C-alpha cells in the first residue's frame, strides 16, 4: 500500500533529506572531483591544468613501480585478513563459551582497543620492536634469545602483524555474531552421534560460522587495503602501499592528478573485490542460511 505511491507520503523523503544532503556534500561531490582530477594534467612548473587526458592512468598502467605498489597493498591486505581469521575465529569461539562475568570482561578487552586511536596502537608496536631501542627487542637480546633486533619496522611482516592486530576486533565481532545464531545444543547433538571435539569444530561449527568469517574478512580486507596510518608508521617511506603512495603524490610531489588516479584506482579495486566476493558468499550460502 504505502510502497505503491511514495509521492503521496512525502514525510519519509523529507526526513531523508538532511542525511542525503550531507552524503552528497561530503561523499559524492568530493568523489566526483577526485575522479575529475585524475584526468587533469600536471607539470613540474605549470601545476594542474584542467584538461582531459589519460596520461596519469597510462602511467599507472605501464609503470612497474605502480604494479608493485598495488600488488604489495593487496598482498599485505590478504595476509593480514588471513591472520585475523586464523586468530580471530578461535578467539570468538572461546569467548562465546566463557561463563557470565568473564564473557563480558573479555569482550570489553577485545573491543576496548577500538576506543584507542589506530596511531597509538600502531606506535605501540614501534615501541616494542623499534630496532635497538624497542623494549621487546632489548629484553630478548638481554636474555640472549636473539643476537640482533628482530626486523619488524619497515618490513612487510611487520605491517601485516600490526594491521592484523588493529583489525582483530572487526573479525572477532563478525564471527561472534555468527556464533550467536548457532544452536547451543548442536555440539551435544554431534557429540551424541559419536563426533570428537576436533570433528565437531571442523564439520559442525566451522561451516556454520564460515559466513561470519567471510563477511569479517571482507571488512578487514577493505580496511587493510585502504589503511593509511599503520603502513605509514610501520612501513614508512621505504615500504609504501597504495594509500601512502597517494598521500605522497598529493603532499610531497604535489602531483595531485596522479595521486587522484592512484586513489580512484584503489577505491575501484576494493569496491570490485568486496562486491564480487560478497555476491559469491551470498550465492554459496543462500541455500542453507536463508
Amino acid at each position, binding site marked *: 500500500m504505502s510502497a505503491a505511491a511514495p509521492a503521496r507520503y512525502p514525510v519519509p523523503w523529507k526526513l531523508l533529506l538532511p542525511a542525503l544532503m550531507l552524503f552528497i556534500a561530503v561523499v559524492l561531490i568530493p568523489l566526483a572531483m577526485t575522479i575529475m582530477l585524475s584526468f587533469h594534467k600536471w607539470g613540474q612548473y605549470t601545476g594542474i591544468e584542467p584538461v582531459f587526458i589519460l596520461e596519469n592512468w597510462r602511467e599507472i598502467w605501464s609503470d612497474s613501480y605502480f604494479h608493485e605498489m598495488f600488488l604489495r597493498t593487496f598482498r599485505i591486505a590478504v595476509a593480514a585478513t588471513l591472520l585475523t581469521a586464523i586468530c580471530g575465529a578461535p578467539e570468538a569461539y572461546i569467548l562465546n563459551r566463557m561463563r557470565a562475568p568473564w564473557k563480558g570482561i573479555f569482550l570489553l578487552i577485545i573491543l576496548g582497543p577500538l576506543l584507542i586511536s589506530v596511531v597509538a596502537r600502531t606506535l605501540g608496536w614501534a615501541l616494542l620492536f623499534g630496532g635497538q631501542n624497542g623494549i621487546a627487542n632489548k629484553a630478548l637480546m638481554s636474555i640472549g634469545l636473539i643476537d640482533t633486533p628482530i626486523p619488524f619496522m619497515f618490513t612487510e611482516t611487520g605491517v601485516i602483524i600490526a594491521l592484523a592486530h588493529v583489525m582483530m576486533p572487526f573479525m572477532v565481532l563478525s564471527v561472534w555474531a555468527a556464533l550467536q545464531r548457532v*544452536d547451543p*545444543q*548442536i555440539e*551435544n*547433538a*554431534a*557429540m*551424541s*552421534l*559419536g*563426533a*570428537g571435539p576436533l*570433528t565437531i569444530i571442523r*564439520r*559442525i561449527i566451522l*561451516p*556454520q560460522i564460515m559466513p561470519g568469517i567471510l563477511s569479517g574478512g571482507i571488512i578487514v580486507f577493505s580496511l587493510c587495503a585502504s589503511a593509511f596510518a599503520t603502513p605509514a608508521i610501520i612501513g614508512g617511506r621505504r615500504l609504501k602501499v597504495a594509500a601512502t603512495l597517494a598521500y605522497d603524490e598529493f603532499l610531497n610531489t604535489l602531483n595531485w592528478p596522479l595521486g587522484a588516479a592512484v586513489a580512484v584506482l584503489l577505491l575501484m579495486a576494493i569496491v570490485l573485490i568486496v562486491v564480487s566476493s560478497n555476491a559469491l558468499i551470498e550465492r554459496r550460502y543462500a*541455500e*542453507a*542460511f*536463508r
Partner: protein
Amino acid sequence: MAFLALDHVNKRFGDHIAVEDFTLSVKKGEFISLLGPSGCGKTTTLQMIAGFVDPTAGSIHLEGRDLLSTKPAQRGLGIVFQSYALFPHMTASENIAFGLEMRGIARAEREGKVRDALAMVGLDGYGDRYPRRMSGGQQQRVALARALVIKPDVLLLDEPLSNLDAKLREDMQIELRQIQRNLGTTTVLVTHDQTEAMALSDRIVVMSKGRIEQIGTPQETYERPASAFVSQFLGKTNEFPAEIRLSDGAQKLIFGSCEWQAPAGPSGPVTVTVRPEKVGFASPKSDSLKGRVVSRIFQGNHWLFQCETECGPAIVVRQNNGEPQPEEGETVSLIWRKDDMGLRRAGESR
C-alpha cells in the same frame, strides 16, 4: 535385570539441588516418560544419562556397563533435542548420515540406511532439502531419523514435540509410538505435557522439585496418584474438605450435607479428591453434594461445568452423549462412585 539403571543419582548446581536421589530401572524396549513442571530436574536427569552433565553422586548403568565412565560420544545413545539441533549447513540426508559416518560405515551402506531412515519417518524424497526449508514437523522427523539410524541402545527425547502445533503433535505422538514399538528401542522421554506422557509411555516418572513423586503406568498414576502433587499435575482434580467422625454408632465421612459411610481408619479432617469426569449429576433427593452451575462450556465431545457447591468450587466433565445437560444457574446434585474417590488425611501431602 534392568537394561538402563539409575541408582541414587544426585545433581547439585552450587546450593541448588536439581535432582535428588533419583533411582529408576528401565526394562529393555520400555517407553519411560519423565514428567513434571519446568525446573523439576527432568531435563537434567536426561542430560546425565546422555553425558552432557555429570551427576554429583550416584551411578548410571546400561546393560551392566558403567555409563558415567564412558564419554558422551561413545555412549551410543540417540538423542532428539527440543530445538532439534539439526546441522543447518547439511541436507536432511547428510544430517542423518553424520552418525553413520562417525561410525566409519562405508558410503554405499550409508546411503541405503539413510534412505530407509527417511522412509521410516515418512520423508522419502526430502533427502536433499536443507533444514531451513522444512517445516517444524519435517525437521522433527529428520531429528528422529538421525537419532535412530545409528541403532542406539537408548533413545532420549527432550521435549521433542513441544514446538509443534496441537494437531501435528497428536499425529507425531501416534507415529512416534508406532516407530518405537516397531524398532523396540528403549526410550526415555522428557515432557511437561501430561497427555503426551500418558499417550506414549509404558511407565511415567512424575517429578517435582528434583524428586520422584511417583513411578507407575499411566493408568496407575492417573487413577491412584501417590501424592497431592501428582493428582493435581496429572489432569484436573476436585478437592473438598471433609471430616471422618463417629455418627449414630458408625464412622461417617461428612462433607457438606452428605453423610457417607467412611472407610476404616481414624477420625479427623480429610480431603476428598475426585476427578471431574467421574462426577455425575444426580436427583436432588439423593445423599449428594448440592450446588449450582456457574458456567457451562461446550467443548465438542464433552461439556465442562463449573459449579459452586457447599464445599467450594467443583469441575464436572460430562460426555456429549446427546442427553440433556443442566443449564447455567441451575441447582444440581453432584455424586460419584465411592471407588472413584480418594481420601487424603489433612496436612499430609502423600
